[in-house]
């Protein structure tokens, strides 16, 4: 199909959906399913208009249309501006084909470089997410159930402070530590533990440490909120009934804190898989992360359609992860994003 034919449909889609919204609202009112004052009666015209315009501007022009345009572009070929919407501007799967099989001229069967980077990113993100959970859960539990109010306030302040420093500087701090002439190597050498400096950055140790560090706060907060809502009596009851400590956590606290756990894990996974700063600053020359590849598609290869396809693949992976978490935890989206 020609892009010149399909493109107007993309623009029309939000309009159609909005019209359907309106139609359903009208029908429900006519059928008497909804009662009470109408929208403009309830809010008054000026405020009603303000609310509508603000939400439409945001939802349509900042969320929906950009995503739709990106999806559409990912199915189109790379063409000079003069040929856009011309006869050669046809929808196809060639950008996705490239992701799987590489360029048609290469002799390899699969696009191993990109596929391996993608796979590595997903696996590493899952590992980082679990490591984060293991590290943050005890702190969240301590703050929510053990520590006093003043101490919790202090700990929260301590937790937030490092996050005012932006991601790149945080990654840079890890580079200073892990560099071959950095503090850790100096200490190892001085202690006689190693004969020559270890290339932590080349081995990606720095990158994983930095990735794990970057989003800890977003794991602690949901966990803390969820565990804090739990009545202390439940834990005491379990203890009185003779449950060992790991039993209490595994079968009493964690099931209760399920929404918080899911929320923390999805956020951390999404942010880690989409991280750009830590891989750029801390990644060794051989390390492969998916987001820098996407970046290069855009601003090195200037192949925007292909970049869009890659971005969409990343987005779909994140959606799949969110859905999987929702399914495993038997949760709704509202509970996860609270």
């Amino acid at each position, binding site marked *: 199909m020609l892009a010149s034919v399909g493109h107007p449909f993309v623009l029309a889609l939000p309009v159609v959906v909005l019209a359907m919204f309106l139609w359903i609202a009208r029908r429900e009112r006519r059928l008497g399913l909804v009662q009470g004052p109408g929208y403009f009666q309830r809010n008054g015209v000026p405020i009603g208009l303000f609310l509508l315009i603000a939400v439409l501007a945001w939802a349509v022009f900042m969320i929906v249309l*950009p995503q739709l345009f990106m999806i559409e572009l990912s199915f189109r070929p790379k063409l000079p501006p003069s040929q856009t919407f011309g006869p050669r501007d046809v929808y196809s799967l060639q950008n996705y084909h490239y992701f799987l099989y590489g360029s048609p001229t290469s002799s390899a069967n699969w696009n191993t470089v990109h596929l391996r980077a993608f796979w590595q990113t997903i696996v590493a993100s899952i590992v980082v997410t679990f490591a984060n959970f293991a590290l943050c859960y005890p*702190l969240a539990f301590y703050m929510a159930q053990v520590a006093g109010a003043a101490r919790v306030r202090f700990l929260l302040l301590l937790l937030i402070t490092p996050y005012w*420093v932006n991601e790149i500087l945080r990654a840079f701090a890890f580079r200073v530590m892990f560099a071959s002439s950095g503090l850790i190597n100096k200490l190892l050498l001085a202690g006689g533990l190693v004969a020559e400096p270890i290339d932590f950055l080349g081995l990606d140790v720095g990158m994983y440490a930095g990735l794990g560090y970057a989003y800890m706060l977003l794991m602690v907060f949901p966990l803390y909120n969820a565990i804090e809502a739990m009545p202390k009596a439940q834990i005491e009851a379990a203890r009185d009934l003779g449950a060992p400590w790991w039993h209490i956590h595994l079968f009493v606290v964690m099931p209760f804190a399920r929404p918080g756990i899911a929320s923390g894990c999805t956020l951390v996974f999404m942010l880690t898989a989409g991280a750009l700063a830590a891989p750029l600053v801390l990644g060794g020359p051989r390390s492969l992360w998916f987001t820098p590849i996407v970046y290069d598609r855009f601003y090195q290869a200037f192949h925007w359609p292909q970049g869009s396809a890659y971005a969409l693949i990343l987005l779909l992976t994140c959606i799949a992860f*969110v859905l999987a978490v929702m399914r495993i935890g038997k949760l709704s989206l509202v509970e996860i994003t609270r």
Partner: protein
Amino acid sequence: MNSRMINRIMVGFYLVVFFAYLFGPLVIMSITAFNTSPYPAVMPFEGFTLEWFRILFADKDMMIGLQNSLRIGVLVVLISVPCGLAGAILMHQVLPRLRNYYYIVVVSPVLTPGVIIGISTVIFWKDFTAATGASFLYDGLILASLGQSSFISAYCMLIFLSRLQRFDHALEEAGLDLGASNAQVFRHILIPYLRPAILSASVMAFLSSFENYNTTTFAILADKTLTTVLAGRVRQGSTPAISALAVTIIAVTVAGTIVYELIKRREDARKAATMRRAQDAERLEMAAA
């Protein structure tokens, strides 16, 4: 040594390790900002210097980037606080049957990686501004603000939603019954109730915008912000001037946090005093009657 003691020691040890991981890298980086060594290093500490701060503030690109970051931050606050507020208020008015779909749409940016938001913003606005002839809108600062606002509005909306959950709608009805117009109820009841949330949403929006990299690096086009300049510098190589920037940011935010705490404490004390006075007055009145 009983098990309670062991437990306490373990908790203490864990807390120390956790916060060492949290602060260790930042502390080490901060020290390197004051070392004369041309490469960021702690050991050996060759001598104390403030030279790196001078170099940092003389860095023209950084200063231009800083200005742009501040502009974008203000713009983002102006866009995303009203949008988030409207989104939260409408959440209670959308038909229950459609509420879920509405929620999915407006909350999706929170769960979308920042790079994707940046990419889609650029693609859309490039096409859209070219098609409508409004090519002056195809500007790095505007695109970065729009891209960031897409998800920062959602954060703001979540803040407003949690505040609105505790809102007593009877207040609105009372206002309307007493003859106030809808606009008056909105201005004199809802907005004052939401004021703390508006304040915290604004601060949050500005800070998220200021430190954002993933969305900005795509949407900024040929312009630069502090974070994108910084990313370029860091990729070129390590210099203690970068550490100096980190020290500056940490100092500003720590100062800000302390001021905020002080203001908050004073306000709490004032509130408590007002409460006490009111209770005293009430007691006196009761005694008199």
